[in-house]
């Protein structure tokens, strides 16, 4: 039985420690699919260590927003982290917010990053900021409908309550509307974390990078925070996917150390599987043109709408 404060600190440590690892594993898997050796899974840790030693060069025409933005967005992502059940459904801060609050915390992070991108006054930043907000605008309706589909099944949008009830449901959690909602959320996750069809994370080519263009001006310590924030957000989005749709093996409220350890291992496994499927999707498609993205995201909108209608017909009707 771990005290509440212990749970919180454990959750923070897991998020901070695990996210670069997952990102390294994804890069490794990508290299594997492209039949090349690729950097070790701990490469992100080394990069961060190196960056901490470098000067953080700052453009001359920036204001305080440029310095405050990474801190605010990282803090917002971490707060969202505390609202999402990772390995245990009992969240000390679960009462503070629900799924919609998490979405809006991510929006706060994105808002400040985009704002900072405009601060340096270069056209790359402006282009990145405009495209990032454009993608976000396309994602929102689909995301909201997906939340409605999920919340419908359970009756409330409180995350710990959702994962608890769905975990309790056991096998019949896999129903048509859940699958439709999962696929919709998967497409949204691609857009949210800036994966291939929407945005190319690994390149610095101006035309294709959206997320990278925003953080072009950062260097040194500030770049570490921004990178860590991005990786943490990626981990949280994956854990959202995992713990809403396949929460089996998640530790229930105030369970012993053993169950928590087991739940942790099971959680890492789920996250890695999701990461690999994401990589599979990435390597099989090329990056889409920016103005074809509305089609992709209207697909996810339709999917979440169908899941809603399916639920109404099956249960509600």
């Amino acid at each position, binding site marked *: 039985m771990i005290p509440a404060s212990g749970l919180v600190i454990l959750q923070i440590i897991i998020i901070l420690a695990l996210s670069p690892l997952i990102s390294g594993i994804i890069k490794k898997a990508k290299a594997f699919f492209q039949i090349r050796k690729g950097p070790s899974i701990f490469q992100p840790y080394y990069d961060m260590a190196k960056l901490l030693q470098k000067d953080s060069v700052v453009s001359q025409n920036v*204001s*305080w927003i440029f310095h405050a933005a990474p801190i605010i967005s990282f803090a917002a992502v971490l707060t969202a982290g505390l609202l999402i059940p990772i390995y245990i459904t009992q969240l000390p801060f679960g009462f503070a*917010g*629900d799924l919609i609050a998490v979405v809006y915390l991510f929006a706060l992070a994105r808002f400040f990053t985009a704002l900072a991108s405009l601060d340096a006054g270069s056209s790359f930043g402006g282009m990145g900021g405009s495209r990032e907000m454009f993608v976000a605008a396309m994602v*929102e309706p689909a995301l909201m409908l997906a939340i409605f589909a999920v919340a419908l099944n359970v009756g409330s949008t409180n995350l710990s309550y959702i994962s608890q009830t769905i975990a309790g449901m056991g096998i019949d959690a896999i129903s048509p509307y859940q699958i439709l909602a999962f696929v919709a959320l998967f497409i949204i996750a691609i857009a949210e974390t800036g994966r291939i069809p929407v945005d190319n994370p690994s390149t610095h080519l101006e035309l294709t990078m959206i997320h990278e263009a925003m953080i072009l*001006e950062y260097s040194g310590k500030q770049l570490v925070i921004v990178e860590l924030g991005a990786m943490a957000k990626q981990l949280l989005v994956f854990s959202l996917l995992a713990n809403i749709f396949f929460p089996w093996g998640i530790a229930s409220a105030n369970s012993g150390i053993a169950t928590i350890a087991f739940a942790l291992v099971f959680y890492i496994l789920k996250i890695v599987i999701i990461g690999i499927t994401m990589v599979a999707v990435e390597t099989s498609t090329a990056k889409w043109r920016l103005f074809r993205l509305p089609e992709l995201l209207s697909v996810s909108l339709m999917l979440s709408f169908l899941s809603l209608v399916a639920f109404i017909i099956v249960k509600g009707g």
Partner: protein
Amino acid sequence: MSVNYLFFGIIAFYLIGAASAVILNKKDAICAYVSFLSAAMASLLGIIFSISIIFGDTFSYALSGGYLKFGFFIDRLSAFFILVISICVFAVSIYSTGYVREYFGKKNIGYLGFLYNIFIISMILVASADNAVMFLIVWELMSVVSYFLVVYEHEKPGTRKAGFIYIVMTHIGTGFILVSFLIFVGTSGSYNFETFAAAGKSMTPLLKDLAFIFALIGFGTKAGIVPLHIWLPYAHPEAPSNVSALMSGVMIKIAIFMIIRVSFDFLGASQAWWGYVVLALGTISAILGILYAVVESDIKRMLAFSSIENIGIILIGIGASMIFFAAGKPLLSAIAAIAALYHLLNHSIFKGLLFMGAGSILFSTHTKNIEDLGGLIKKMPKSAILILMGVLSICALPPFSGFISEWLTFQSLLLGFNLNNTFPMIILSISAAVLALTGALAAFCFLKFFGIGFLALPRSKHAEHAKEANTPMLIGMGIFASLSLLLGILPFYVLPLLEKIAASFTGNLDSFTFSNFGTFAIASGTTSLSTPAILGLVFIFMFGLSAIIFLIGRKRQPVYETWGCGQPVSTSRNEYTATAFSKPVQMWFKNLYRPARETETTYSTSPYLKESIKFESRIEQVIELHLYNPIVDFVMTTTRKAKIIQTGSIHAYLGYIFGTLVILFIFVIAGGNT
């Protein structure tokens, strides 16, 4: 008894403000201070008065007066609106004492102060009228006085056209309201609102629908619901900024007040399809409002369009509440109504703040075009922070007030699923999706406004020589900025107040359960929210993080040029512009905008040497072009044709008389014999 004194004290103070504005007309400075500060004083009384009404009981007072019986009836709902008015007036009045310095010597300050005070009195009287005649008098007085405020700077070319469209549209609206009230007078026989409520219950369904439709169109014109919104982007930008802050913040809300009053109190919101109509109108206004705001590069026009969007969001809340009320679920209807009222309060505050911000930008740079701004955060640091807080709350980002009301609206739409019949579920979820899109586009639009307007290098001489706004303006904006933060962090003070108000017209009292740490849950369900906790966490992480960063790693932060792939990038030439920033959205919705662009190239000597290229792109206002212009053209052509009656020849005139005589003869002979 003290409540009577308080109410008449409020009116007295505004009248003192108006009178002093006229008396001290010659001395600009003193006149500005006296008239606006007395308005601020009166609004303080207003706040105390309305809160005492909300927690106390209703206030009614009849003034005897021959044929025109003026009386006041303030229940919790109208007290809430007096509260909204008073809060806005308090901050805007302080702001105005600084803002009107721009007009010293150029314009007549006494006239502005006088109109300003009369404008506020008329709004308060509208909220407290107890019979149709008085209501219509003060309603149109409000529109007429705001018309004179809109055309205050009538030397500017566009102002007269904007004022004309505004006064004609509001007059058409009043025409519809008149018909709707007359339907009530027709059945009840008296002008008093109580008899309206009684008559409303006993009317035939057809009359009820007619009364509702006319009232919705009438008040919708004033609120700026989409098909009737075309005056709003004309009128608000032309008015002086402190007035447009009040108009956008408060005046369009009075129309919402009356929509609630007519549909709930008078007609008992018994028909379900009314709710769907209001919901649909709200959704359309929200999405169209923000779409036009995103591509707008004139600050005040953008804010006007965003007012249309927020009115849409409020109407979504009210529509949902009417649907639940008609389906016999007072609890759900109360929650939806609270969401709408909360957003109404928040919108008055952050829209007032943004208009005041636009005013301070106008005050220091004399331009409203975002394309000419840039780098203002360095020139006007204090107002930049305050405007940033306004921007954050309008984009509904967590610690600020917009987030709470948007979250509540989403939750109330989600509650639709307890109605266990399919039609409302589908409609409410579509409206939720559109609301989400609107929220995201709002973030896009205001990021463009703040990012392009305040950050990086100034794009024009105006922006370079901008200077910080004077202290009263900063105080005014500060009040609203802190209020929008407080409303975001402490909802558990505001929600009990709103519960009482929603109960007054939906009949369900406790719709929220409150627990420690400032959390509130929806109707003892599990979904709960506690913004103080979220804010606490964010702050802890921020301080923790900045402490760690400060300690580890290298300290040096050399300053260098922005990265421009090697070339020196020191000018503001290759900064992103507002139109470029909103280009993706314009491409996404191009068949709505129908962008028209013209390029004119002037050649010098030979066709190969271009002297200059002039490029101009315009966004079409679809509704205005395809709905209003045909009607106006039709009226104009018929009037031109009808003018042949007065041809000038006396013989024709005599012919008319002879003709009427013959027709009447036939009318009598035929009529007589039968």
